[in-house]
């Protein structure tokens, strides 16, 4: 028998039934819920007189709308407040395995708290009404984002109607140079295969460079699989996975842990397994990456220049580049290091975990934010990340350097709360999307790693972090 991929194993172990045309009913183990994409699903359920199938699968939190300061005053935007209160009411009515509401000390970005609580486990199917659910694939789980109708479908049936994707292997070999991170790795992969390159695929990230990453780094990589257009991203289970999960609140314990580990060890692609597409990356000469445009594929190395549309032959692409440069207020051939910034955002489900904050703090330590930077904010991914950082004194490091130290949430990753860019403002951001208006109407986003964002805050423009470390 031919070998099976990790994706094959995860898929096959969750198929309840399959139609002749390949449409499958897939069982869902973990359902993560947040306030933005769930209200219409709960309402639909109620209107149809249906009950949730398995309440213990639900882990919920409020993250997109929550403010990042003055928590004592509650949520001042009335429309945001209604959405968060609607989630409170829906969870109170239906129940959940766990709910971390606004101001709970464990509240945070849904993709940070799932793993942090051990609610994301290897071998699971994990869904959420949120595209960055791919993050959880870092644990050898099959995790993907769904729409609100599907949220309702999962609530009602514990299943999804879906089809198997094609498989892609991204094999990253070599050792990441100092100052070059998981974020740079995944941005470089997206730059190479494009934002539609993973369309129709589930991507497994493998190779020595991936195995050497911490769980935080693997989550960063899988988080951005969706920016390559992939349905899911995943990484095989190994000791790094176990070390992260052991002792987490919802992880199994004692005998069950041992039993689970024995199964989890099988969650890797067989050596003879074949993939529909293989992409090889050598990371040993990788440089820190900075996006210059309005799509994550518009990315160059920090020592590079803003590209010139005149050198692009494909007309749709050329027009797209020209439009992006105009939106971004950039001139072709400008050195990336000469681009001055107005704001810095360190946060989001891509880069707001403790390791990210440590990396940024290392750069900020003993230095100060440049005078031309109006705001440099650090938004931890969860209340527990924030508490951990404070135990380590990172909040002091940031504050002393002139950064704002905020409460957890999505914040300026998508600017649904008060944290946003003003028109024309330029931001070095550790988030995952640089779309037009993503961080505020007219705002200009450059995606970078946490260390690169911190360095840009200090210098007032992009700098090559390798010169600092």
């Amino acid at each position, binding site marked *: 028998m031919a070998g099976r991929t990790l994706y094959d194993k995860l898929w096959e172990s969750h198929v309840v039934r399959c*139609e002749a045309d390949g449409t499958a009913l897939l069982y869902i183990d973990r359902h993560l819920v947040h306030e933005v994409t769930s209200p219409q699903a709960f309402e639909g359920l109620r209107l149809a007189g249906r009950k949730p199938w398995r309440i213990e699968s639900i882990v919920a939190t409020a993250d997109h709308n929550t403010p990042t300061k003055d928590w004592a005053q509650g949520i001042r935007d009335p429309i945001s407040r209604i959405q968060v209160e609607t989630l409170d009411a829906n969870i109170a009515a239906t129940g959940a395995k766990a709910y971390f509401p606004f101001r709970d000390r464990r509240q945070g970005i849904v993709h940070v708290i799932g793993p942090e609580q051990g609610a994301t486990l290897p071998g699971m199917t994990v869904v959420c009404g949120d*595209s960055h659910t791919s993050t959880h694939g870092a644990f050898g789980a099959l995790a993907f984002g769904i729409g609100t109708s599907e949220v309702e479908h999962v609530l009602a049936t514990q299943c999804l109607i879906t089809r198997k994707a094609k498989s892609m292997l991204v094999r990253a070999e070599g050792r990441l140079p100092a100052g070059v991170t998981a974020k740079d790795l995944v941005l470089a992969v997206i730059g190479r295969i494009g934002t539609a390159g993973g369309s129709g695929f589930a991507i497994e990230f493998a190779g020595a460079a991936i195995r050497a990453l911490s769980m935080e780094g693997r989550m960063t990589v899988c988080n951005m699989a969706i920016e390559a257009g992939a349905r899911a991203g995943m990484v095989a289970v190994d000791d790094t996975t176990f070390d992260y999960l052991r002792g987490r609140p919802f992880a199994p314990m004692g005998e069950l842990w041992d039993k689970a580990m024995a199964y989890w060890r099988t969650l890797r692609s067989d050596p003879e397994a074949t993939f529909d597409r293989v992409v090889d990356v050598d990371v040993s000469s990788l440089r820190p990456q900075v996006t210059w445009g309005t799509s994550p594929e518009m990315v160059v190395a920090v020592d590079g220049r803003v590209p010139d549309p005149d050198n692009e032959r494909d007309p749709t692409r050329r027009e797209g580049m020209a439009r992006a440069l105009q939106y971004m207020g950039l001139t072709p051939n400008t050195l990336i290091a000469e681009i001055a910034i107005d704001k810095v955002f360190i946060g989001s489900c891509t880069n707001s975990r403790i390791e990210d904050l440590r990396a940024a703090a290392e750069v900020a330590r003993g230095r100060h934010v440049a005078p031309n930077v109006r705001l440099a904010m650090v938004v931890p991914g969860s209340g527990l990340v924030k508490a951990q950082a404070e135990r380590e004194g990172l909040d002091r490091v940031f504050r002393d350097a002139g950064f704002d130290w905020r409460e957890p949430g999505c914040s300026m990753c998508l600017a649904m709360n008060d944290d946003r860019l003003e028109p024309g403002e330029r931001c070095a951001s550790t988030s995952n999307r640089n779309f037009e208006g993503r961080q505020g109407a007219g705002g200009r986003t450059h995606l970078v790693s946490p260390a690169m964002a911190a360095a840009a805050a200090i210098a007032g423009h992009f700098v090559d972090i390798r010169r600092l470390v």
Partner: protein
Amino acid sequence: MNPFRIVTGLVAPLDRANVDTDAIIPKQFLKSIKRSGFGPNLFDEWRYLDRGEPGMDNSHRPENPNFVLNLPRYRGAEILLARRNFGCGSSREHAPWALLDFGFRALIAPSYADIFFNNCFKNGLLPIVLPENALDALFDAANVHPGFALTIDLERQTVATPDGAMQWRFELEAFRKHCLLNGLDEIALTLGHADAIRDFESRRLHEQPWLA
């Protein structure tokens, strides 16, 4: 969900690749807890000259006269032409809700982002995939001929000009076609397999008791 069978409608061309869901419906409108009312804010940042906020009276806002959907000849369009990777970005179902609420019944593009593509079907919005050269011809026609319309026949899986001069066939999964044609409730269909789900669940719990 309303069934989709045959739609004949005016065609509007949106000539950009990688149109993302933040562009289709900006985040400030995601604060609604309803499924309807998103149409006036479809493509908000491109369509209006001021900054849109939820609760505004959109009929008094200054429109961007250059945005394609604001051109008089494309008003009332029901079919949207787009370029590759349409709907990339977030999982927000507000994107198809807004397109439908605005009046679109079908989209035609060379490719779509996965979650968006899925979300369309759940709401009776038909995302048709045609090859790049077909799109080039369609964009040309929509630019050149005012009032350019198309007829989409889901049963026959065809896109054609009303006079039949141009015609293409498109592919579609059998299950999706069946659901769309009949306006079926997928949850009810799945609940028809409740026994199979329960069997699966008990087997899973036996093999992986830590998932209780």
